[in-house]
């Protein structure tokens, strides 16, 4: 049986985005990426490839890095979502964001939100990663501008700063 588009029922799906409880009306198979961008106006997550190869749509779902282009929104029900918009505390940028700025870790900007969230996910699991671990942690996020070196430097700089901050 094929459901016709005309009598399709949208459902109410609720989840937390960047600390705020949100309820959206959406088709269950809509991509989380489209709901975030289209309905909630959170355009930080970008659509690159649309098939989980590039990481530019990365968000954190219950603390776990995911490609939001591959998440049907129904599977995000009751989840805790963090997008790049939720990383800074008011006017205070996240240490990773600061470090990306300082190191030239962002150029055209398409990959940057995903890169920073992938780095945040890495640091949540490994607060003191080696360069190899940084490279692996970001290996699902493609960048066509920087050549990656500045990005890895930015993550390493944020790590050093966090270490100093947590002990001072």
């Amino acid at each position, binding site marked *: 049986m094929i459901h016709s*588009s005309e009598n399709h029922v949208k459902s109410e799906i609720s989840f937390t985005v960047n600390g705020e409880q949100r309820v959206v009306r959406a088709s269950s*198979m*809509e991509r989380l990426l489209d709901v975030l961008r289209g309905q909630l106006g959170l355009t930080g997550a970008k659509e690159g490839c*649309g098939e989980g190869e590039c990481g530019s749509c990365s968000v954190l779902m219950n603390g776990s*890095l995911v490609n939001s282009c591959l998440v*049907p929104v129904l599977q995000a029900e009751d989840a805790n979502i963090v997008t790049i918009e939720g990383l800074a505390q008011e006017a205070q940028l996240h240490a990773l964001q600061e470090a990306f700025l300082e190191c030239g870790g962002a150029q055209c900007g398409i990959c940057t939100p995903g890169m920073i969230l992938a780095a945040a996910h890495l640091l949540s699991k490994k607060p003191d990663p080696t360069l190899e671990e940084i490279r692996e942690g970001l290996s699902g996020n493609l960048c066509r501008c920087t050549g990656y070196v500045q990005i890895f430097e930015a993550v390493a700089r944020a790590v050093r700063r966090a270490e100093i901050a947590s002990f001072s």
Partner: protein
Amino acid sequence: MRSDPRDYELIAPGNLRTVVELLSRSPGEWLPIAGGTDIMVQYAAGKLPSRKLVSVWNLPELRSIEVLPEEIRVGAGSTYTDIREHEVIAREFSMLARAASWTGGIANQNRGTIGGNIVNASPAADSLPALLAYDAQLILVSVRGERRIPYAAFHTGYKEMRLAPDELIKTISLPRKFSGYVCHSRKVGSRNAQAISKVCMAALGRVAVTGPSETIEDARIALGSVAPVPLRLGETERIVNGKIIDESLVRLARKIAIAEIKPIDDIRSTAKYRAAVAGNLVAEFLNLLADTKGMNRVLARWNNAPGDTAEAQILPCCGSKRWAHEMAVRRPFNDEAALILASDETWRNLDEADWIEAFNSHPRIGETKRQGETHNSDAWSRPEQEKVTETGNAAKIALAEGNRAYEEKFGRIFIVCATGKSAPEILEILQRRLRNDAANELQEAAEQQRQITQLRLRKWLQG
């Protein structure tokens, strides 16, 4: 063309029973979707055959890893991340953990599931050769009950499998019978992450010492991306089992392996290249077995040493006698990764007194004489403190003063993983840690000792 979400229906019953009942009511109508890393790609491309989907993502019945005495039961809904981070899998089924780490990138590993990987049935899937080599069994579930079949019998042709329309894979069972085997797995592709393999292999086997010469026992070689299904090289295995590895056997095995596979030309590679690589990988595995370097020589000898000898040999890597004892008890280890994992786990579970014993086996930083009398780790400490000992007098004095202040405050010597760190860097760390409270400082010192032990184990294995 992109799909219109309004043409599709996704439901999420939240428990396995309801899903299985739904599948049985109208077999073939509902397509199970787990983490969506394959299905959502087909959906985006407008190539998804089914309009009705049922979510099996995060079902508690499917997402558990159970360690039993005879087998490990991996829930089909376990993600690659669940698998690569599981300590027993990493230790006993390291090729599966490695394959999980090669799959996609971190985001795909957080969502992709082992069950999904099996039913997606890509001949190039990285984890499937490991399942073949390890003799995995599948437990399938439907309203009719559960049945168990060997994974080797599951895939029957390209994307064809022995799964009834009302069935789901519930569990992947890994028999715990490969301790002491040498394993070798490889992914050959453009890069590890986000690139599908041109050829991948998981192989294990044992070398038995029968008489004066070493012969191969129970070689198990599985390849991906060289046939319509992941392939176990049964002929090649038969040829090599019971034989002494020499050049002519390796040549023959390479030839048989190439004859056994059915590679194709596609966008990623050519049949010719795949055949050459497959032959090389088989030869590489046999050569590893031959010089038993697949198992590190130091490790192989240590695995077979009597208990007290083994304890004495490994003790200088850490300094705690209980750590050394438990490591010896946990033998045999297949490889460095397994050894290090066990070391970390053992170390974290020790008592404070054991930690202190290890700390006291070190010389003060900047000095070369150890504190405790448990054993001699001075030989290890000298190269580790190399950058420190290059230091001038002023810094040496500052370090000595810092050490004294530390010992006064915490009642033991200051432990830091000194490898690669200069005296000023260490001084800075020392001054910061002087401000810790006792509990935090104990944890921090223990973490430093864990890193030191890791480095020493690695060096030790290098012989």
